[in-house]
């Protein structure tokens, strides 16, 4: 079958892009998701705090997921669940598997919105036994909120970002006694009154400068070894559940198998400010290109991509080369990853900006007050206002320096000063 736009992934990004594309009259829009219900991660994230920046209202995850799916469908997008894209070629042909069989879909544009997942214990190379009771937040939330499972006993959460606190809330709902959140960082990384409710945050101790060294238990989890990174001392903490949170990795498998260039920082497909990937007609948005931002930011980034896809389908997108945008340690990534530069011509148009007019970055270290220094070939393009830098939290860089970029110059490098 042929469609104008194929969107892979019906999470906040994919659904928001679908509604926007239909609103802009971009033709037929097919959204596929491999899960049996559309909505993505918010489906099983039962706390409130969704929808603030994109829908201008406050909702729980499942309500938000339903709302976005409803908006996409009522806008006229074709939404198919339990449907997996098993391959994607550079000429925009996708193979789909669903309970109805196999089907080939050819699109004029493809938006990848496959999201991200947490690195599981094995990928973090935490040694020890392989007992039951070792989870990620994704599995935890589905077990508790979709299966109604109880998790009595003691629980340890690895990580101290927003999602870690979300895991702690879920554990508490499931009847677990959350012993601690464990982080290698010297302090926790969540907001003081993050949407989960501040009370919980003060009840659950956060063990900072601590790392999980071993998982113990034959059959079921018996406990974990926790090292104090400042003293080197290790101790055994008995628990029945351990949840590995955050440490996001984009679900980039389809992007990689389609031969798209990946950005070494985000590990998602490298995209320019229009969210175009390295193959013509393929775009990427949401947490596939910035793992992980909140759902509303993923939704807004996808609307941005939708607007550029709609423009490209009527032939008005700027043809362009691109200047890469990179970051340097302790910054771990910057998204988007390139600035398009108009090809030489009599009237070069303005350089299109990134979603929300800003770049997003991550750092592996805390900085109380720091500035982002943006340079190209040693020449400073801008120096940001002072910002606080917290690992796992977004750092924003306003994109007002784009006109200074030399189209013929080297990569733009962002550092902390």
């Amino acid at each position, binding site marked *: 079958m042929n469609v104008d736009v194929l969107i892979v992934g019906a999470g906040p990004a994919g659904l928001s892009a679908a509604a926007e594309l239909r609103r802009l009259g971009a033709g037929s829009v097919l959204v596929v998701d491999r899960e049996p219900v559309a909505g993505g991660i918010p489906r099983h994230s039962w706390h409130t705090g969704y929808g603030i920046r994109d829908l201008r209202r406050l909702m729980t995850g499942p309500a938000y997921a339903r709302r976005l799916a409803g908006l996409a469908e009522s806008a006229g997008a074709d939404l198919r669940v339990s449907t997996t894209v098993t391959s994607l070629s550079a000429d925009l042909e996708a193979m789909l598997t669903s*309970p109805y069989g196999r089907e080939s879909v050819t699109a004029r544009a493809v938006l990848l919105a496959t999201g991200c997942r947490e690195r599981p214990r094995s*990928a973090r190379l935490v*040694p020890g036994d392989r007992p039951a009771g070792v989870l990620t937040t994704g599995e935890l939330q*589905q077990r508790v909120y979709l299966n109604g499972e109880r998790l009595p006993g003691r629980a340890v959460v690895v990580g101290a970002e927003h999602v870690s606190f979300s895991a702690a809330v879920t554990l508490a709902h499931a009847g677990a006694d959350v012993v601690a959140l464990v982080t290698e960082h010297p302090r926790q990384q969540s907001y003081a009154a993050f949407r989960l409710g501040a009370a919980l945050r003060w009840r659950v101790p956060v063990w900072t400068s601590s790392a999980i060294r071993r998982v113990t238990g034959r059959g079921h989890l018996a406990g974990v070894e926790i090292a104090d990174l400042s003293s080197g001392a290790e101790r055994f903490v008995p628990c029945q559940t351990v949840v590995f949170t955050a440490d996001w990795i984009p679900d980039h498998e389809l992007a990689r198998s389609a031969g798209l260039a990946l950005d070494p920082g985000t590990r998602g497909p490298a995209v320019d400010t229009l969210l175009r990937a390295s193959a013509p007609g393929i775009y990427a948005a949401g947490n596939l290109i910035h793992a992980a931002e909140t759902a509303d930011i993923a939704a807004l980034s996808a609307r941005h991509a939708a607007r550029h896809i709609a423009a490209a389908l009527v032939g008005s997108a700027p043809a362009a080369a691109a200047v890469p945008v990179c970051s340097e340690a302790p910054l771990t990534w910057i998204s988007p990853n390139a600035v398009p530069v108009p090809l030489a011509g009599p009237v070069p148009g303005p350089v299109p900006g990134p979603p929300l007019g800003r770049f997003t970055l991550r750092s592996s270290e805390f900085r109380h007050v720091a500035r982002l220094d943006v340079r190209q070939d040693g020449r400073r393009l801008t120096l940001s206002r002072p910002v606080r830098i917290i690992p796992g939290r977004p750092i924003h860089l306003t994109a007002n320096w784009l006109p200074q970029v030399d189209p013929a110059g080297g990569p733009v490098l962002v550092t902390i000063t």
Partner: protein
Amino acid sequence: MSTADVVIIGAGVVGTAIARTLSAYALDCVLVDAANDVGTGTSKANTAILHTGFDAKPGTLESRLLARGSALLREYTAAAGIPVERTGALLVAWTAEQLAALPVIADKARQNGYLAIRPVPVAELYAREPLLGPGALGALEIPDESIICPWTTPLAFATEAVLGGVRLVLNTRVTGVADGAGHELTTSRGALRTRWVINAAGLGSESVDALFGGDGFAIRPRRGELIVYDKLARSLLSSILLPVPTARTKGVLVAPTVYGNVLLGPTADDIDDSADVSTTAAGLSSLLAAGHRILPGLAAEEVTATYAGLRAATEHADYQIYVDGKQRYACVAGIRSTGLSASLGIAEHVVASLAEAGLPLVSRDQPAPIPRMPNIGEAGTRPYQAGGEIVCHCERVTRGEISDALSSVIPPSDLGGLRRRTRAMNGRCQGFYCAALVSRMFAGS
């Protein structure tokens, strides 16, 4: 209580192979295991390679049964649909000393009856494996070394045995033996009377042997830790990359898997606890160091899983197989790390020895056919390729495959068993997306 003709203790790859071989005869056989599934010990956690036996010690029983078993298993995989891929192996020399050892290894292979081994010049080596780390000096090619599914193999044997009338008794540990007209085995779940006993208890074979007065060997568990890389790493290599073995171990290899991943390992540590399959920080970091030297591209790839398995080694260099006709007892022990490849050769040898020792073998009129196992390998066609509801996304396992496994001849008794039958939850997300749903399906079955 009826008296069985034969009780096989241990439903690993060796015990199940013996059971399926015996099921062709008019015998009342019982296959008993302490665990809740077949193939849960050494059989489930190994390097998943179907060896030719090129590097066995010439003249040993292991050499002979490995060559024979390997040929038999190749045939059997085709009939049973066990995933196998003949990728071939390249045994790579990285030092002058190792390079000098290659002709000796090739010579040994010929003594083992394996003639297809040949030297590979360094230019050809890099042409075949362009992403191999720098510094290789030369290699041997062993074109018949293959990768195989270690989970489907004992399951196929056991399925054939059960369909052929063998009684499979799981969750039952043999604890003692009393002798009368036959043997009366005491177990954790009551007594079992039998005329003959076959000890294929793997890591537990020393204690079973002691019940029959044996003291010829001691099991020395040798732990091997392994790392499984993401499927996206599969394009980094095309053959099994073997190191030059040392006196003690075959060394760390890098191999594709039939599931489309890349395997790195094993370590080799002698340990005391025959149930300790934990990984260690030191083991994993030594593997990473070796892996990054052999195939530098691995450094940028994600790890999907880590695990450890125990080889049932003894103080002897060869298998410890003997049949005592007077006691009507067979001991099949010390199979070390070659049980998967040699299993059908071992079974053939043991059954012939039992016949010599007096076990009456009368062929059944209609033996059970070789079962056709569900394909969980990437080389064959997988169900999702015809459509279906994919439940485990990383491994592309359909709802139908899970239902089929849950209602199979030997259904899984826990999620681990379901993983070994379908690959569900074995992928890169390790259950982030699918574990809750798959658990629900398992609980509802």
